[in-house]
């Protein structure tokens, strides 16, 4: 099992109506690997994360997470579309951080973080609270536990969202443009938290971002997406300094 990639896309097709979003995508991410996905808007890069988080179904191909098919179940030797129970189990491998934070506005910061550990993982209130405190400390917001999201800045809200995802203790963290909705002066504090996470060897991290410098700094590998395909991928220094493909060159010159 441990030799399985954390994530594997095999000839995955995703369409919205007549538009092809992902065109026979193959992508493999090793356990503990930190991968950034860059590319123009509409290139399908966020869709990769949304498929993994089971927010968007796929039209063809197979996605594996921790060696098991995500959108399918094995029935004998054939793969059949997964039922909700399978999806619920598979989701436990992953946590996601959204561009718009998506905190629950009527819940305190602590309740935002403890809700899923309590009701999905079955932790006691006390245990869940301790876990919330632990992750709030990690994102540097210990003293804000009893506030509501609207009382926090955008950067603080996104750090709560990161703590909320981490409190489910996933092996894979998905970041969907986590700083795109933030005022420029608030971007740094969120990137700092993500960078700290990136130093954990056993955490697999998939980041969709427009922050090129940051992607370069934390990634083991960077993938350049365009029109539903990986145009080019490689070590960050190679991809950013000596891009081979004309489309990558054009994108990076902007």
């Amino acid at each position, binding site marked *: 099992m441990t030799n399985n990639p954390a994530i594997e896309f095999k000839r995955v097709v995703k369409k919205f109506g007549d538009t092809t979003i992902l065109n026979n995508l193959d992508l493999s991410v090793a356990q503990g690997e930190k991968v950034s996905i860059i590319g123009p808007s509409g290139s399908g890069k966020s869709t990769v994360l949304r498929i993994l*988080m*089971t*927010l968007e179904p796929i039209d063809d191909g197979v996605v594996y997470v921790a060696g098991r098919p995500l959108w399918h179940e094995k029935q004998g030797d054939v793969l059949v579309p997964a039922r909700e129970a399978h999806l*619920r189990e598979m*989701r*436990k491998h*992953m*946590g*996601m951080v*959204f561009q*718009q934070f*998506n*905190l*629950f*506005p*009527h*819940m*305190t910061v*602590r*309740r935002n973080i403890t*809700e*899923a550990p309590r*009701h*999905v993982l079955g932790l006691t209130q006390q245990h869940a609270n301790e876990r919330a405190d632990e992750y709030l400390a990690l994102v540097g917001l210990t003293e804000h536990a*009893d506030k*509501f999201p*609207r009382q926090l800045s955008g950067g603080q809200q996104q750090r709560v*969202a990161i703590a*909320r*995802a981490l409190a*489910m203790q996933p092996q894979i963290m998905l970041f969907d443009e986590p700083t795109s909705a933030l005022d420029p002066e608030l971007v740094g504090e969120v990137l700092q938290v993500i960078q700290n996470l990136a130093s954990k060897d056993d955490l697999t991290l998939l980041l969709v971002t427009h922050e090129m410098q940051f992607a370069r700094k934390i990634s083991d590998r960077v993938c350049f997406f365009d029109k539903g395909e990986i145009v080019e991928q490689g070590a960050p220094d190679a991809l950013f300094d000596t891009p081979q493909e004309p489309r990558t060159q054009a994108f990076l010159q902007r």
Partner: protein
Amino acid sequence: MLFDMHWNTDTHWSFAVSILPILLRGMWVTLQAAAIGFVLAALLGLVLAGLKSVRYRIIAWPARVISEFLRDTPLLIQLFFLYYVLPDYGIVLPAFMTGALALGLQYSAYTSEVYRAGIEAIPKGQYEAARALDLSNLHTFRVIVLPQAIARIIPALGNYLVSIMKDVPLLSVVSVVEMLGVAKIIGDRTFNYLIPLSMVGGLYLLMTLIAASAIRLLDRKLPAQGIPLK
């Protein structure tokens, strides 16, 4: 004399003072009809909203037709229908219950839209976050959607309570003696319509103003973000 209470026609003032308790008896009927109509509307509306959102068209479609029909035909027709037609099929309700039912039915079409709009106003991101955290659908509805929707639903429902109050006088056509009906009887018997009708207008204004300010207070008390959960 009405409800065993007499009026005094010596002066305008004494007349007004003497019919006030009689009008208040009628007002009590008005309030009861509005309250029962409102409770029916709130409950039936919830059922209608639920049926309309069912994925199977065989259920959702009739619910939509019924809702559209209730909303787009006059209350008076529905009232007459319930009062004069149902007894032909063996369903005989007291006039007061018929009236309250008619109010409840018509307004259920409106309240069902209030529920639907309240739930649809929840941003998609809330559902996605709940899904990403692996919360069950039922738990998501109970703890994420409902507490946020309710803050939008309750004030909107309250506005319909005021409308229902103002529609209660229609029930007088099926012999429910509510406040306006009481005023008319007094007018018929004393040939003085000005004072009882003016007083009904004033009492109505008082009722709706109180109800409206109660709703505004509730609206302010309910945080826009929803019922807070600590």
